[in-house]
């Protein structure tokens, strides 16, 4: 039941976002859109309640969303800007030193691994290629492999993804 309510409320909020400025009855929504939105949200909630939420309600905590927002605006955006300047430099000069390395971020949940993989793909010269689902280890294609990082296996996480696992652990675990 709780799964159904959460899925319905989130569906309704997305519907409201997609139908902004439909009228002036309730702030910037018209009553007809709200009624239709409630009906569709209930149908969608019945269908997706077991797919959308697997086993826990950890992400309902608003503090996690706040940390996610801080993470996106702060460290993530900065390293993304640096990554883009780095890749721009490599596009212009053509100096690359690529390779696939394996890292062990020591995350436990699927959501955490997904978030880390997406963050890694969007930041400094790295692209996640594959995942070892038993141990939650990631294979990363790295455009400029540093010699220091190749000493031990799995490779040291700090060269590839910096402080991301710490943030992701705070958000998703």
């Amino acid at each position, binding site marked *: 039941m709780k799964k159904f309510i959460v899925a319905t409320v989130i569906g309704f909020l997305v519907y409201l976002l*997609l139908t902004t400025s439909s009228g002036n009855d309730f702030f910037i929504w018209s009553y007809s859109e709200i009624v239709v939105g409630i009906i569709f949200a209930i149908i969608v909630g019945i269908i997706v309640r077991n797919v959308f939420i697997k086993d826990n309600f950890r992400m309902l905590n608003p503090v996690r969303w706040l940390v996610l927002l801080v993470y996106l605006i702060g460290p993530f955006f900065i390293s993304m800007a640096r990554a883009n300047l780095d*890749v721009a430099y490599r596009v212009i000069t053509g100096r690359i030193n*690529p390779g*696939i390395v394996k890292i062990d971020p020591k995350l436990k949940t699927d959501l955490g691994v997904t978030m880390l993989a997406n963050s890694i*793909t969007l930041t400094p010269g790295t692209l996640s*290629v594959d995942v070892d*689902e038993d141990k939650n280890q990631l294979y990363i294609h790295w*455009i400029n492999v540093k010699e220091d990082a190749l000493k031990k296996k799995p490779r040291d996480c700090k060269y590839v993804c910096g402080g991301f696992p710490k943030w992701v652990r705070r958000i998703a675990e």
Partner: protein
Amino acid sequence: MIEIIIYVFLGIGVFFNLLASFGLIRFPDVYTRLHAGTKCTTFGSIFLSLAVIMYGLRLWYLEGFNSGNSVLVIHTIIALICILVTNPTGAHAIARAAHRSGVMPAKAVVDDLKDDRKKGRGRKKK
């Protein structure tokens, strides 16, 4: 003032999207091309979207709360979130499919995934 910011954002966005297309030509293999194709286009698209959001916010502010301009702002924010989620996901899918079908990275210094595949680990059991 706000128009200058919008133009600057548009300029940055177009510049990075242009770099991405250069990268597609200059880089040697599929993985490095994906680097150019994901990062630069995402960054460029973020700045283009920010320009649209600024423009929409300005219109929304100038014409009043109920004027119907919120649609530009909010839909662009949703599009931005979708780009941020789907672009790396598509890159993972392409990279994984390429490696599984035997495309090895060009000029690779190290390839842990290939070594693990040979040992029979790293392959998913099904």
